[in-house]
């Protein structure tokens, strides 16, 4: 169990949030021109790092807004919370 600081509501328990998986995966700009391999890469392939993970969360049992989080997948430490559309912040290892 960990606390997540919603950028709109402040720190709340994890149970209030829904997980949105890896962030910063851009929709293909020109879907018609994509090959099957490029579709597979966009739809299915994931970084799944052991370390810092840039991911999306939704405050589903709160303000219901989406935002990004940089969270460590071993310690579960959250180092950054930032809004959708913002670039991923650099994190010192």
């Amino acid at each position, binding site marked *: 169990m960990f606390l997540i600081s919603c950028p709109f509501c402040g720190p709340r328990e*994890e149970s209030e949030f829904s997980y949105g998986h890896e962030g910063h995966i851009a929709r293909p700009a020109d879907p018609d021109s994509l090959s099957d*391999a490029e579709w597979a890469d966009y739809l299915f*392939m994931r970084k*799944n790092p052991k370390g810092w993970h840039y991911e999306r969360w939704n405050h589903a049992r709160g303000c219901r807004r989406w935002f990004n989080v940089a969270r460590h997948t*071993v*310690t579960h430490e959250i180092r950054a919370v930032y809004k959708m559309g913002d670039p991923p912040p650099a994190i010192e290892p």
Partner: protein
Amino acid sequence: MKARYSIFSLARNALNYHQDWRQAWRSPEPKSEYDVVIVGGGGHGLATAYYLAKEHGITNVAVVEKGWLGGGNTGRNTTIVRSNYLWDESAAIYEHSLKLWEGLSQELNFNVMFSQRGIMNLAHNQHELRELHRRINAIRLNGIDSEILNVEQIKAFCPILNCSPTARHPVLGASLQRRGGTARHDAVAWGYARGADSRGVDIIQNCEVTGFRISNGRVQGIETTKGYIGAKKVACVTAGHSGVMAGLAGFRLPIESHPLQALVSEPVKPVLDTVVMSPAVHVYVSQSDKGELVLGAGIDAYNSYAQTGSPLVVEHQLNALVELFPIFSRLRVLRQWAGIVDTCPDASPIIGKMPVEGLYFNCGWGTGGFKATPGSGWVMAYTVAQDRPHPLNAPFGLERFTSGYLIDEHGAAGVAH
């Protein structure tokens, strides 16, 4: 060849106060090169080594394990074995595995305590009941034993289950696979390790892989904490860490790693002689031979490599347990833990060749890999030895994510993780 375990060896050693048992496998230093190196000393990896040696005569093999044998998901699962899967491709591979389970203790000369105590999946609403009927019919068409129980039959089969019509989630029916059951999970790793070792396989523990040496698109060997080990072929069987291994080899997989929690209660006298699963309220429970209830939960939603998890998942699971079994409400929990499971978008495994020549992965088993251990090792050994998949695992290649031929076992597999 090692001395066989038998009632006579037990009696003979009893006379010496059991001081003279030999080690079940050696712990050699790694050689400079092997025909095949298997990364990961869990059940699947050790089974792969065993069948490589036994079925394909390839014995110049090493299994490298960063911790100890069976210390990962092999020792962390809830030991359930079954083959009641919906789709033909899954039914074929899981049933192949179940048939291997049925002879495994004899095959390995090691008691894996496989107990075909039956596995019951509950339906709590009309939709689930219809879905259950559909699934059972499909399973039976594949020649796999499965039957539907009505509420009276459920009461007779498992008297302690709360079948009251006024329950929050009333039990309306169940499927039962009588050939399903449980096995002693770490005995499976030990049995395969002993069998592989006696055929010449080197088992190297406390040896972590830190990189792959790849040239001209072909794997040459692995970098480890015990130095470089050359290999003509490398088979990666690392479950939750498969994404990390793929990263070291320079490609990505359609896999996310999540914690899957389990726990055991204090031991009590025999009270539950089958396995009960409820996909809707989400708990699965059996009783170990020690008397502990073995309870499994759902995965934590977030990506994680921490072998723990959030208490809210455990709370949810225990709510479901005492709803189904009010008799368990006063039991205390002794231990809780998590294993890191490698979940695939279609809840089916990936077994086969990878973008690097000579590199094979067996991963993506997600929340249900233990039951597949013998069959998974068997097809993986074939794939590595022949450099092509066996018909049983051909549908489970990485290329299905490009072709779109997914084998969607979400929900269909019994527990909707």
